[in-house]
């Protein structure tokens, strides 16, 4: 009982029994049903759930932005005591402009590319409020300062494409806050951003909420992000809120089987696949056209009983502030949960260090892209040649049958690295030695046996399969091409592959558009493994998937790797996933490896300062873990003109540890510091000092 609580008594928004339907030829589709919650002043309500569960639909419903065929079918939304349902568009528009603001995932959808940022921001004040230009400008600069925008004066003069994605998102948030809205709806505001930028934006959201007492509705699929910024969390599943509770309760004491399942399928930071298992939720989210008659989660629930199948479940409070949509919430003890037979963890045999043999040796590999300079001479091909040094002087060794993870922010060259190895990009310099073959030149120049040994799993499940051909057709092609099996056995081999990725035989004739994202990704994996390659390069294979599917795909990958003894290179931007999956990890920054070593060594001191800040930025889906607060300033410099000396020196938070404030970092390339056991750090700071860093977080004890 304190002052804040007393002032909060009236919620800013109350949503009651909200139902949203889309009209289609086949009749109304009820995308959101029976959703109720309220948000108070200065509170952040997180809405989590997998894709297609209606999170964004709720957000759009609140501002009645449902498109031509969407409508609020049921229930009511009260904003500041007034109902928003049944308002004329005119009224809603004034309300939205003044009191409700929205921030979307992609900042470019809200910024006009042909107007200067200053003009776009000032418009908010000058058009509706009649504020004078000078004053509006002053207020905009002040607000940009509040969102920690470096150099606000000059940013006002720039065009949206001239600033980075993180800065664009800050501009959007600043514009939204100019009107001092009572409610801010954020729809996946950090999903498109890198972890370090994401961490900064999340800090910002938290500060703004405190300062302006704004009610925030924060939509995200990322449990870690939600754990960091939210006060309360609503878990949505198939268009219904299944659990609503304070953030600590959601993570420490989840009551709904779906929430429990979600938390179980996210890799814990610092856990590896040899010490922990991910438990995917079986089945998939039902489509709103075809919902089960009883509990929506019943078909996937381990605790389902007869009663769950027949009746609609009501959303009921089980404790103060904790409501759940489950008949038997009190009886379910998450600690007593045991995985069903097919999910039992298989024991992974670790390969002892002395038996590890190198399969891929990369020696000062360079991949440069030619970049047309802005000089007019380059129009006729005479301009000075400029190169984007996407991968610059990278050396490492990958061990047979083990996984090498590569992490780094976008633009650090990790994708280019594996594309160069597989031959989709040309090698500019250096040497790649693969089982004694020298890999150089593009894939066209390699012979079939080398091509067969190197395969790739791609990121985007929607682009990984050719939409024009059936699954069987696409799996047959590599079999024919690599002559893996005799012609008459191709079909049975395809079916064997399908079974290996846990898909049934009838998928043979399916077209890609009939498959879910996870299924497409499984086919992509089957296709990569069809030629029984020795090295599989995975380019963010799970980052576009929902967490429950992600867990299944990760399990599948490690199972197949175990079975074939395949070596893998695994790129991901999610550090928990990389840690979980990899035996060795390389951290890249601006085309260079800054740290490489065994996975467990990377996640504990000694750290490279960059690794440290990456780890400090990871959103951890556990509000009880305290993370050290290290934030990077500035942007990733352009790879066209990388900083001299240590490339990280422009942003390094640890530079001051060196004499003369790290003058040496600007001039000299950092030396290699060997911490033993193939753990190498490229930094000017001596190893002893690096060892003294506080761990970024306490890794919880191993075990479930």
């Amino acid at each position: 009982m304190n002052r804040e609580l007393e002032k909060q008594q009236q919620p800013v928004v109350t949503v009651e029994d909200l139902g949203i339907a889309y009209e289609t030829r086949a009749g109304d589709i009820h995308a959101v049903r029976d959703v109720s919650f309220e948000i108070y002043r200065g509170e952040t309500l997180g809405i989590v759930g997998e894709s297609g569960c209606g999170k964004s639909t709720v957000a759009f419903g609140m501002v009645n932005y449902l498109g031509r065929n969407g409508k609020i079918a049921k229930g009511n939304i009260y904003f500041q005591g007034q109902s928003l349902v049944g308002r004329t568009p005119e009224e809603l528009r004034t309300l939205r402009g003044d009191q409700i603001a929205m921030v979307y995932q992609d900042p470019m959808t809200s910024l006009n590319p042909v107007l200067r940022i200053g003009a776009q921001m000032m418009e908010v004040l000058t058009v509706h409020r009649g504020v004078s230009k000078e004053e509006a400008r002053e207020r905009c600069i002040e607000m940009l300062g509040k969102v920690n925008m470096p150099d606000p004066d000059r940013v006002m003069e720039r065009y949206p494409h001239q600033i980075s994605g993180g800065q664009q998102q800050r501009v959007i948030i600043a514009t939204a806050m100019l009107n001092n809205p009572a409610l801010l709806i954020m729809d996946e505001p950090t999903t498109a951003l890198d972890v370090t930028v994401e961490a900064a934006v999340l800090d910002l959201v938290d500060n703004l909420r405190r300062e302006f007492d704004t009610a925030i509705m924060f939509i995200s699929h990322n449990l870690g992000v939600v754990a960091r910024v939210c006060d309360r969390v609503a878990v949505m599943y198939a268009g219904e809120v299944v659990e609503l509770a304070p953030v600590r309760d959601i993570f420490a004491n989840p009551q709904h089987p779906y929430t429990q399942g979600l938390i179980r399928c996210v890799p814990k930071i610092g856990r590896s696949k040899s010490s922990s298992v991910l438990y995917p939720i079986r089945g998939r989210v039902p489509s709103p056209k075809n919902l089960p008659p009883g509990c929506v989660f019943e078909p996937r629930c381990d605790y389902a009983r007869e009663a769950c199948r027949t009746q609609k479940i009501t959303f009921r409070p089980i404790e103060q502030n904790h409501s759940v949509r489950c008949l038997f919430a009190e009886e379910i003890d998450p600690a007593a949960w045991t995985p069903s037979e097919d999910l039992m963890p298989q024991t992974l045999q670790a390969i002892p260090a002395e038996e590890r043999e190198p399969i891929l040796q990369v020696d000062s590999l360079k991949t440069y892209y030619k970049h047309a300079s802005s000089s007019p001479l380059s129009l006729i091909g005479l301009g000075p040649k400029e190169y984007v040094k996407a991968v610059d002087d990278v050396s490492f060794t990958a061990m047979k049958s083990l996984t090498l993870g590569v992490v780094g922010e976008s633009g650090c060259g990790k994708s280019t690295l594996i594309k160069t190895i597989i031959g989709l990009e040309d090698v500019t310099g250096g040497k790649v030695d693969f089982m004694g073959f020298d890999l150089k030149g593009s894939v066209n120049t390699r012979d079939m046996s080398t091509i067969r040994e190197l395969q790739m799993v791609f990121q985007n499940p929607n682009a990984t399969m050719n939409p024009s051909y059936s699954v069987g057709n696409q799996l047959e092609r590599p079999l024919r091409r690599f002559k893996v099996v005799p012609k008459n056995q191709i079909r049975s081999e395809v079916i064997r592959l399908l079974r290996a990725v846990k898909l049934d035989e009838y998928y043979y004739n399916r077209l890609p558009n009939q498959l879910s994202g996870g299924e497409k990704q499984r086919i992509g994996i089957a296709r990569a493994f069809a030629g029984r390659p020795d090295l599989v390069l995975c380019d963010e294979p799970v980052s576009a998937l929902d967490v429950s599917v992600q867990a299944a795909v990760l399990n599948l990958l490690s199972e197949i790797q175990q079975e074939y003894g395949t070596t893998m290179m695994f790129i991901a931007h999610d550090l928990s996933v990389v840690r979980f999956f990899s035996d060795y990890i390389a951290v890249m920054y601006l085309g260079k490896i800054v740290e490489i070593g065994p996975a467990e060594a990377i996640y504990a001191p000694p750290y490279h300062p960059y690794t440290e800040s990456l780890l400090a930025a990871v959103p951890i889906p556990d509000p009880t873990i305290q993370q050290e607060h290290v934030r990077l300033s500035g942007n990733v410099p352009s790879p066209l003109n990388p900083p001299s000396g240590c490339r990280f020196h422009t942003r390094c938070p640890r530079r001051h540890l060196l004499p003369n404030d790290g003058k040496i970092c600007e001039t000299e390339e950092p030396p290699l510091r060997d911490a033993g056991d193939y753990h190498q750090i490229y930094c000017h700071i001596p190893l002893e000092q690096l060892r003294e860093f506080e761990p970024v977080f306490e890794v919880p004890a191993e075990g479930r």
Partner: protein
Amino acid sequence: MLVRDYMLKHPIMIEPHKRLPEAQKLMVENNIYYLPVVGDGKRLLGMITPPRLAIPPERLASLDVWEITRYLSGLTVEKVMLKSAELFTIGPNATLEEAAECMIRNKTGGLPVIENNVVIGLITDGDLLIELRDVLGAFEPGWRITVRVPSSRDELLLLTRTIADNGWVIMALGNVRAPKQPDHWDIVLKVWGCTRDELMKAITNLEGHEVRDVRETLAYSYVNAAT
């Protein structure tokens, strides 16, 4: 202690063209007494207070039911609100005392907080009472002691030093000129970390300090009293 930090941010507001019953409903349902009326861009136009909702009988031609309905249906917020010209407002950087003074002098209980001609909050007598309660440490556990001291420069210092020397903690403090005794001050303290006897002993030792009242409060005693 500025208005900025203690006002209610994002108060419920209404637009001038809304019909009066809607405003009434809003006030009743949300249990509020001051409803700022704002135009485009949250510019203050006026305010509705409960007396404005009453229908002045002289405005009606007759007390016929139809006449009343007709009159009501034509009534908008704009027509009955206190116009901004007759309204008292305050800036976010004013002190709480200034807000209180403004309310007392103008016999009002709620002031819209205005910055750049835009309503950014609302401060009411209720907010001030909450502050009074919290300044006096209502929810802090400990001994609430009222001491009357002569009006001299170092009496407060003496008192606080005594408490500090004993290693006790002052959770809250209020200091006001004693009623009807202009040469004395009443000091209200919330002291934590001692027993009643220790406290009484320490204070009665001080010359001229008269303990007017001592009572113990627990963290939850007010919550219980309220329910």
